[in-house]
């Protein structure tokens, strides 16, 4: 993060502006430096700890789960952990299995952490500002392939961490997605619009807790839900979300909740194999066609 500027240049030149006491290059010891960040946060400092790739944070799982997540609770509210744990994750371009992990599925069970996924330049900035100021431990998911996405940002704007983002209002079906899958879905939407469909697309933003208000309002309107995620089918964000929607919106649903998720396989290296493990726009189109049936003309 310091002299190198970050592996994706996220922290480029920040150390020149803020110095080595604020931009700290650590040795390679995720468990160790995560614990140190948590210890510093317990004293009231606001550290931002980066996993160079989110996948490496598996080495720090104990610290994140037992210390970041649980300390406020086990201390009876005495100690807060106002830190942000961030880093790039998700499937990139042929980075191999170990560098293509979706840690949100592992972390979602930890009580006491908040999970936030950014997807645009605007919400990346606004959400991170909110995350830093929050007194809760926030795990902030960035995506390896989204760093080059350009967009408008607003100065001095904070986005609430628990609210989903309406990407496209519609009537036929609610498509719930987050991070890079937002772009996959919008690619599919371009095709679906041509075919006469009118999907509603919601970017979840808050992976824990879910913005159930936004989601249930949408389901009441469309009666159909497709979850598009990059997590694997087993135990992903979609699995939890699907269960919750079934429980909350059963009477509003006209179709079972459909999940489009990555296959339960390690991400292969070869281009075609990698493409086959994750959700592609064509599959989103097919799912909408299946769930909605013939499009209702406006």
């Amino acid at each position: 993060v310091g002299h190198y500027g970050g592996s994706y240049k996220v922290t480029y030149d920040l150390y020149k502006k803020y110095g080595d006491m604020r931009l700290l290059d650590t040795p390679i010891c995720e468990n160790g430096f995560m614990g140190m960040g948590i210890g510093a946060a317990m004293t009231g400092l606001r550290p931002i700890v980066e996993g160079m790739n989110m996948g490496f944070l598996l080495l720090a799982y104990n610290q994140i789960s037992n210390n970041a997540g649980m300390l406020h609770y086990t201390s009876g509210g005495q100690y807060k952990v106002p830190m942000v744990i961030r880093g790039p994750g998700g499937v990139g371009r042929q980075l191999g299995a170990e560098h293509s992990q979706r840690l949100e599925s592992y972390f979602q069970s930890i009580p006491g952490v908040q999970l936030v996924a950014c997807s645009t330049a605007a919400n990346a900035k606004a959400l991170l500002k909110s995350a830093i100021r929050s007194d809760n431990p926030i795990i902030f998911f960035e995506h390896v392939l989204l760093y080059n996405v350009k967009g408008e940002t607003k100065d001095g704007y904070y986005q609430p961490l628990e609210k989903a983002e309406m990407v496209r209002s519609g009537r036929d079906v609610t498509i719930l997605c987050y991070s890079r899958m937002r772009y996959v879905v919008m690619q599919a939407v371009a095709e679906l619009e041509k075919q006469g469909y009118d999907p509603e697309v919601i970017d979840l933003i808050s992976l824990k807790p879910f913005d159930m208000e936004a989601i249930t309002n949408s389901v009441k309107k469309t009666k159909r839900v497709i979850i598009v995620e990059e997590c694997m089918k087993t135990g992903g964000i979609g699995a939890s979300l699907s269960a919750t929607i079934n429980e909350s919106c059963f009477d509003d649903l006209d179709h079972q909740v459909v999940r489009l998720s990555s296959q339960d396989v390690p991400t292969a290296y070869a281009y075609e194999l990698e493409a086959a493990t994750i959700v592609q726009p064509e599959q989103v189109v097919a799912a909408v066609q299946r769930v909605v049936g013939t499009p209702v003309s406006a």
Partner: protein
Amino acid sequence: MLVARAARSGLGSGLLPGVCSASAAVQTQCARDFASKSSDPSIEVKVRDFGAHRIEPPSTTVTATKSELLGYFELMYKMRRMEIASDMLYKSKLIRGFCHLYDGQEACMVGIGAATTDTDSIITSYRDHCTHLMKKGTVVEVMAELLGRVDGASKGYGGSMHMYKKDTNFYGGNGIVGAQVPLGAGLAFAHKYRDDGGIAMTLYGDGAANQGQLFEALNIAALWDLPCLFICENNHYGMGTSEARGSKSHTFYTRGDYAPGLKVDGMDVLAVKQAISYAKEYALKHGPVVMELDTYRYHGHSMSDPGSTYRTRDEISQMRTQRDPLEHVRRLLLDNNFADASELKKLEKTIKKEVDNAVATAKQSSIPDPADLWKTIYRDPLGAVVKGLDSSVKVQL
């Protein structure tokens, strides 16, 4: 009166209030000494040699005043009685789960307390009841937490292994072996960041000394010159594995390699105080010091361990008779006429009563309300609604 005492005791350490001679000049001197020192005489005590690695050891001559020694005795005795009370409550099934007792190791915690201030941070393992006391927590808070009541140190949420006291910088007991060590290095970073003159002490056992994260944290602490003491409370057994069977190198104070280390007699509160004071001063200027406190626990690893399948009863009783931390201070008090046997007996009785009362008070404390189950998960309320156990119950966070 004190002058007469000094004459009677015949101890020649040179620091007792002067024995008055007939000379007028000396008498004036004596009078001045009498006024300032008579209320709190001090002695010099020689402690065991320190082990030293890449550092000059402190002097083995330690000064202690009567009030200090009485204070150490009182606090150690309170710790001892508290742990014995916990043992009894556990056996009556009022304390459940895990309960790791500290009796035998009292000198470590009291010595640390004597050498440090409220600003200095401390974090330790699950054997943390006495750390809470050292950091000015009360016996009621410890007992109530063990009983799972709202007046406990963590309001009943934490239990034996998770006691904390924010106002005196006690950052907790920790359940996972060694996980507290990087946290401690983070506390040291915060001290350095704030430049507040405090140090962090991160405690671990001989078993935890083999955790990789310890070496990760030490490397960063040494690289960044953090004011951190890495203190190994070596009670020679990691659960049932003796240090010889668990560690290739069991000179724990040298295992920091590039970092200086000190080995201390952990059964002697004065040795611990001396070494910690010295190391604190060093750490504030130069960075981390690894310390090894050579100590012993009388109980097994926890209440479910009789503690006799991996060590002999002879070893335990030998430690009790030859190196017990309380007996050591008792001897110092008696030998120097700072107190007589009946005074100490009276003090012990008072403390025992205090602990018994604390247990009674803790038992009166109420059981936590299940409605409070969700209260302290997040610091910032989320405004979100999450589901309870059977999904029909909704909780506002």
